[in-house]
């Protein structure tokens, strides 16, 4: 699991500054609903402190939490790909501070500066790949009494 430790770390200063110029600092109280599954994915966040639960809508029951995202991690990647709709919902578990980035402006910047667009896409893809791997590991149920081996 080698998810990029900080999405913007190591970017050339000009690219990093360009992105940060679009961002604003946000604070969310505990139990804030940040977005809902299917809603417009028009922003993303880099978590600075606190933790956010990603959940899934299941009719008739409280949305089950499938993963949590914490300090240093990227919250939200649905803004990268059409149709720009959230795949999951998100709720803060406690007070959260984060940098919030507007998706349309970031995409426009990426179009205008292809090197930045490429780098950011690669980094987001790395995050997605690591979360996919983590999900696969959890599917193995390694902590089960039989170590997940039901053969």
């Amino acid at each position: 699991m080698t998810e990029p430790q900080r999405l913007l770390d190591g970017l050339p200063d000009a690219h990093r500054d360009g992105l940060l110029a679009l961002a604003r600092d946000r604070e969310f109280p505990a139990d804030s609903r940040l977005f809902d599954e299917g809603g417009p994915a028009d922003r993303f966040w880099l978590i600075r402190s606190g933790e956010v639960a990603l959940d899934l809508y299941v009719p008739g029951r409280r949305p089950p939490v499938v993963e949590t995202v914490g300090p240093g991690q990227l919250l939200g990647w649905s803004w990268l790909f059409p149709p720009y709709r959230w795949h999951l919902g998100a709720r803060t578990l406690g007070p959260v501070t984060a940098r919030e980035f507007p998706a349309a402006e970031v995409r426009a910047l990426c179009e205008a500066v292809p090197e930045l667009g490429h780098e950011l896409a690669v980094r987001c893809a790395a995050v997605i790949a690591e979360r996919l791997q983590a999900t696969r590991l959890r599917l193995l149920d390694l902590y089960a009494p039989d170590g997940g081996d039901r053969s």
Partner: protein
Amino acid sequence: MSAVPVPYRVASARPETADSVSLELVAQDAPLPGFSPGQFAMVYAFGVGEVPISVSAIDGATVTFTVRSVGAVSAALGRLGPGSPVGLRGPFGTGWNLTGTADADVLVVAGGIGLAPLRPVVHRLLGPAGRLSVLVGTRTPADLLYPDEVAAWGGTARVEVTVDRPDREWSGSVGVVTALLDRVEPGPGTAALVCGPEVMMRRTADALLARGVPADRIQLSLERNMRCGTGHCGHCQLGPLLLCRDGPVVDCAVSRQLLSVREL
């Protein structure tokens, strides 16, 4: 070190989870030599068989083993109550190398029952370590070992617990334990001790290496089929290592490559 099981008696049997119990044992006569954190014993359930179990607490005249019921012997051990006889051979193997941890940042990463062999390390390092962080991954909240103790460690150490499957009451982290690493920012000065399922340890080691932790400062507790405990029978061979003697704790500089060899 005796080749014959030394008689011990269960002083207390404490259920930890639905399938795990901690057996506090006291010698009936002369005890075995003292255990170090990370070492293991061959624990004998009379009339059933013998299994290797790492020590999960060391306290004067008593030694504690946390046993998870996964087979006939461990199930028999799990049924024992206070006063029951048990045979012990040991202590076997290498323990956690705690040299140089007094002023270092120490990171303990445990997965599932892997918290048990790391528990004596936490007991020993609470306080003395420069900065102690404990990351625990478990299947469900109900599967977390020593929950009260883990909560109490949070008073002195940085403690983070994540679960694969939350229940309705769980309000903490959900996901793999490696996702917690960046919260404690491991780096070149970190000493990392890791125990859990082998896949989890491989991933954790790779993530630590990627964050600049030197391979020789990452210790993994490996498991193979320990039988004799003395490096004679060869059942626990991992490449050039006999893990009952050269392990179970092996640093990553030695073990990481071996764990990638499918034939081993």
